[in-house]
């Protein structure tokens, strides 16, 4: 299977093996970072919901969570 292509100026060529390995590693790291960010956002949303269920106002929730 051919590797993805890149364009440098007007020249288009296939990625070298090193460039392809770097690109794959970048995507893996980016996916991990995105998953961590999503998990953090989900935890924050869950915390907001639980605090609201306890009767806290939006202002009180914001004061507690800092946002």
């Amino acid at each position, binding site marked *: 299977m051919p590797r*993805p292509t890149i364009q*440098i100026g007007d020249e288009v060529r296939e990625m070298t093996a090193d460039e392809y390995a770097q690109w794959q590693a970048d995507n893996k790291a*980016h996916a991990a970072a995105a998953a961590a960010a999503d998990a953090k956002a989900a935890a924050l949303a869950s915390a907001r919901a639980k605090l609201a269920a306890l009767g806290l106002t939006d202002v009180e929730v914001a004061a507690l969570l800092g946002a």
Partner: protein
Amino acid sequence: MGANAQTTVPTFTASQVLTADQQNQSARTGVPVFATTITRDAAFGGTGEKTLAEGQLAYVEGTGLQTYNGSSWVTWGAAPSTGALIYLTGASFTTQTSVSLPSNTFTSTYRNYRVIFQVTAVTADSDFTLRLRASGSDDSTANYRTAGSGINSSASAVTRCNNLATSFTVGESDNTEVAYSLVLDVISPQVATDTNIHGGYCFFDKPVSSGYINISVSGNHQTTTQFDSLSFISSVASSITGIYRVYAYADS
């Protein structure tokens, strides 16, 4: 005697049959005019092209008259007035994974540059990153810091940041609504000090229902590496179609 030294300044007669050498002598005595230093450098040394040697004259638009001293180009006199921005290079690209400016786009001729990337289509939802580039290779060391903050079309705050990462993070694009553009100043890429970026970009979030986002971004690459190019990289193979343009800020 150097390669540019002449032994005659010929005059030809009517109906004279000229040899290739005579025509080359004539063709090479004029001062070639180039749009940029990049096109100047590309015009010598290739197949069927003259070998660059001491004494070569060239006129570069926006820079002026230059001579080659055997190791570098020397500019003579005051550069012509060209305005504040000098166009350097640009290209369109179709379903690429990564797009790099030509080698030696950033040179010691100018200190600061403006780069504009516009993505007009993506084949799938994609994340975009930017890497500085030197001598034909992207710099993937963990020396990039990105501080981006903005707002979406629903008036919610949005951030796009990283710290000691292997690239600048410069947003993303939904594949159904593509309106990504990046306008970036690149500060001192060819100086042996930090390279900074300042600018902004906008895009439709993934998913597009999250709205249209504008981010004001600054970035720092904390090394003394002298960069001559940069790369715009998509997380999805063969995904991005668009256009870029690069300008230099005039230094005087």
